[in-house]
């Protein structure tokens, strides 16, 4: 690996971490689309900053662009507050206009400088190592590495300092307000961090990938955990994993780094979406199938409990009585036998002691709906969960 390759992967990883932290809170606050708005509408801020400083990594440019990001949020909220349009419409109105102002500014004035729409949309991560930071003539690494490193340091500092405030105001803004943690301050704090991170990452990965790095890792982590701290750690992990894998994918395909990282992010999400242990599509389908079987079993046991007459309990006529297909009757019968819930004498089915007790408990639960009675049964059957 050349030093340029290491530097690119390092920058991509730091960008991924910086994005995952605010991204987690944006996802939980159902504000994913606002990051899309910010990432596009900071363009005029970047362009104007670039005209002034002629340097994509200058602090003034980052400041100007971040201010544009905050203005976007304020504009969206102002339009929404009038009650004339909904939030998603307000977002859809604001950011294309600001973005296109940026596009026009570039086209009019920047023909002879290194700033074009392609770079803005997809970033130029491959070129990042060429722009070095020199201090008294000594090369101390790529500029964008220092910029994103600095932003990440501040983001982590803020996260540690205000984790509790972020958590309470995201979960329950009403309580946060009544406790004296102004949700407005935290909201605009988060928006500022998101804007600054977006600007810092913009040069490296462009407007589209910034959104992917903010939202996809957090959305993936959300499917895997029920703990906020873990969600943050997983999101960071998925972000870094995708950044590095994406870089090598681009290397072998000889394709855009930003595009490859985004593709990997999408694939990682898809994998987790399908295979996550609890919330994944397959787990949910499996659980539903289990539940159907268990409801059938319970119906069957209830039928046996309610009917003493042998004619209702003959093994070959069960399906007629509870109106099931033969196959289903057979599988339920086997399940009950396997669990020692029933016994067979001369093709007449009857409940065992265990089956009888289980059925009584289940009826009690269904009638009283009291949780205490069901706690023990929950371990054996999905039916009573959730």
């Amino acid at each position, binding site marked *: 690996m050349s030093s340029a390759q290491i530097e690119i992967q390092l920058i991509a990883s730091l960008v991924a971490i910086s994005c995952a932290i605010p991204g987690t809170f944006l996802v939980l606050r159902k504000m994913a689309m606002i990051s899309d708005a910010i990432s596009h509408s900071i363009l005029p801020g970047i362009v104007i900053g670039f005209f002034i400083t002629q340097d994509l990594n200058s602090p003034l440019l980052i400041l100007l662009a971040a201010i544009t990001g905050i203005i976007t949020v304020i504009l969206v909220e102002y339009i929404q507050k009038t009650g004339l349009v909904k939030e998603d419409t307000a977002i859809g109105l604001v950011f294309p206009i600001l973005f296109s102002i940026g596009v026009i500014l570039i086209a009019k004035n920047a023909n002879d400088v290194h700033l074009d729409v392609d770079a803005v949309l997809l970033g130029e991560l491959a070129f990042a190592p060429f722009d070095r930071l020199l201090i008294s003539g000594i090369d101390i690494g790529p500029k964008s590495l220092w910029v994103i490193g600095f932003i990440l340091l501040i983001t982590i500092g803020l996260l540690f300092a205000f984790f509790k405030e972020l958590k309470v105001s995201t*979960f329950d803004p009403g309580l946060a307000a009544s406790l004296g943690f102004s949700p407005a301050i935290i909201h605009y704090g988060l928006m500022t961090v998101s804007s600054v991170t977006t600007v810092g990452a913009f040069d490296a990965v462009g407007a589209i990938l910034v959104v992917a790095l903010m939202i996809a890792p957090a959305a993936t982590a959300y499917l895997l*955990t029920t703990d906020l701290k873990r969600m943050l750690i997983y999101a960071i992990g998925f972000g870094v994993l995708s950044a590095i894998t994406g870089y090598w994918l681009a290397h072998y395909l000889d394709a855009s780094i930003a595009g490859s990282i985004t593709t990997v992010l999408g694939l990682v999400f898809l994998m987790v979406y399908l295979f996550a242990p609890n919330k994944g599509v397959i787990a949910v389908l499996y659980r539903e199938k289990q539940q159907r079987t268990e409801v059938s079993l319970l119906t069957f046991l209830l039928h046996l409990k309610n009917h003493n007459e042998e004619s209702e309990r003959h093994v070959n006529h069960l399906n007629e009585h509870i109106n099931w297909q033969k196959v289903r009757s057979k599988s339920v019968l086997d399940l009950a036998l396997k669990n020692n819930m029933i016994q067979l004498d001369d093709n007449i089915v009857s409940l065992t002691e265990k089956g009888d007790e289980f059925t009584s408990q289940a009826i009690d639960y269904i009638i009283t709906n009291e949780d205490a009675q069901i706690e023990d049964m929950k371990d054996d059957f999905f039916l009573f969960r959730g």
Partner: protein
Amino acid sequence: MSKKIAVQIDDLTVAYNYKPVLWDIDLEIPEGVLMAIVGPNGAGKSTLIKSVLGILKPIAGSVSIYGKPYEKQRSLVAYVPQKGSVDWDFPTTALDVVMMGTYGSLGWIKRPTQKEKKAALEALEKVGMLPFKNRQISQLSGGQQQRIFLARALVQNASIYFMDEPFQGVDASTEIAIINILKALRKAGKTVIVVHHDLQTVPEYFDWVTFLNVKKIATGPVKDIFNDDNLTKTYGINYKVSIQE
């Protein structure tokens, strides 16, 4: 009765987009009452609580808690929002939600310690939810979620409790558990203010009542003012409830 006034509301007017939802409310809530706020949908019951707690900004009027503005008395007040106002899929546990009640006394930046955790566990115990402390909140029933909210208010160890429909969507056993806790709070000298929907249970649960419908209709002891006349004035139809003597 020369009781202290816990909450004093003067000329309070609150508007959403210039449409008043509360109009010129004057209300004194004496210390130590268990009070229901009743009124039809859109009467401004939740708005009244939120304005007292500084969550909404009134366009006129003032509120004081034991004679001082709310901002100076936060530590004396606990709040139970409507259960539906939060996302129960949020990645957190029952214990963690109750811990949030301690954040107010901690202030900015400081983190909860073992002391706060112990207080939260005690509050969970009081509402009978200790066995569920590590359960993810979406895995709790509606009644259990409401108990968690109640525990979160208890952990604040306040003097005044504001609760927004704590009985909404809970089963009978939780309703009894909650009302017993509210009565225990009153017994301990606390003031409890509850937005309440079920008129039938007002005389049984509460000793004080406020009728509200954009304007204040009446406020006072349940035995004096909970009658067909005030109900009709509040709900606008000829309302009759049978009150068991």
